[in-house]
């Protein structure tokens, strides 16, 4: 797959801007393990592929996140969503605040990414409940991402 992206730093930033979890916070009510509810490793892989495609064609943010190392983004994103969802994974990427320094991710950029994640999960046929539980966890990192 070819994407109009130029550097891997920005890919990492994009990854991190969608959320990074070093301590995923607990879900509000549903006790079922979120990783299982999302559909496990296979479903997360589908979500990540969809997510990459959504971002690639989103004119609102594509300039902002010019990057090229799609493969690294793919691997990091899979690890990351797995960890946030309490799955059996380790995240090997960089810290979020450092990565976003100087990026100037706006509120609108952040919400655009959230919309891309919603679309990615819709297309992966993830039910609304697990979608919201994942989004709620990812949302807790917003303060570390925007206007850095």
């Amino acid at each position, binding site marked *: 797959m070819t994407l109009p992206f130029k550097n891997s730093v920005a890919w990492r930033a994009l990854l991190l801007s969608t959320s990074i979890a070093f301590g995923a916070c607990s879900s509000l009510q549903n006790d079922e393990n979120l990783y299982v509810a999302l559909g496990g490793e296979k479903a997360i892989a589908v979500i990540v592929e969809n997510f990459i495609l959504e971002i690639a064609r989103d004119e609102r943010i594509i300039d902002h996140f010019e990057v090229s190392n799609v493969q690294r983004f793919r691997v990091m994103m899979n690890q990351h969503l797995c960890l946030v969802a309490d799955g059996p994974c380790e995240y090997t990427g960089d810290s979020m605040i450092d990565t976003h320094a100087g990026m100037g991710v*706006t*509120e609108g950029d952040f919400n655009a990414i959230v919309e891309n994640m919603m679309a990615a999960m819709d297309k992966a046929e993830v039910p609304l409940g697990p979608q919201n539980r994942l989004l*709620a966890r990812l949302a807790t990192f917003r303060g570390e991402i925007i206007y850095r």
Partner: protein
Amino acid sequence: MNTLACQLLLPLLACSVLCSTSANAQPDGRLRGTGGVSSISGAGGGGLTPWATLTSYATRDARGGSVFASHVSVDDHTLDVAGAAINLHDRIELSYARQKIRTKASDATISQDSTGLKLRLAGDVLYGRAPQVVLGVEHNALRDPAAALAAGARATKGTDLYVSAARAWIAGPAARTTLLNVSVRHSRANQFGLLGYGGDDQGGKVHLEAAVAMFLSRGWAVGAEYRQKPDNLSAQTENDAFDVFVSWFPDKRLSLTGAWVMLGDVAGAPDQSGFYLSLQGTF
């Protein structure tokens, strides 16, 4: 009041041009539904009451606005409202609405202008632990003061002050995005001001409003509202207002709300309830 209306509507028109032509302003920068709908006073809400949400989808980096028309039909009265609001950087909301109540039996009408200012003091409705808190002012002026004065109202103009707080949980009950809004209002208005302000049986001036909304999907929300109201006129009883609603947000341009409203006694007519429809366009 016409001058004030122009002062509000002109920037609105200007914004509709500016907002749509600026490249990076992202007037749609917030998530679908987070701008709420338009209340009967023109301020972002809520239908029967404004909420702490600011109209449109503008973020701190943009401006936006909304226009709307609403129709309420209860047993003995109808209410038609049209208006607009602008959102400046998700910090300040300016609103205007023209309301016209009609008594079905006599075809008598009363019109009122409502202008509003809402200032977001802190928080974000969707993100973070703290609620979004706003301070709001609504100034209402009757265009047809006779009925209010005949009913015993002390004034034909009035200003309400309110503080409102809203908090949404992305994964709320049943993992559905759920919003709770609570407001405290200082008001002497009789029937939203349509029967003037104050009276010979002046009651409490501080009132509570509450609303809950749940998104069953990304585009459909259901909920309920409660608005405590004054009861200042000895000649007429006034009751608190309730509604249950369904709102549809097909995209960030449009919303359609249907509700069942229960207003209690209105202008001598007992137990008024009926439907509410509101169409809103957002830019």
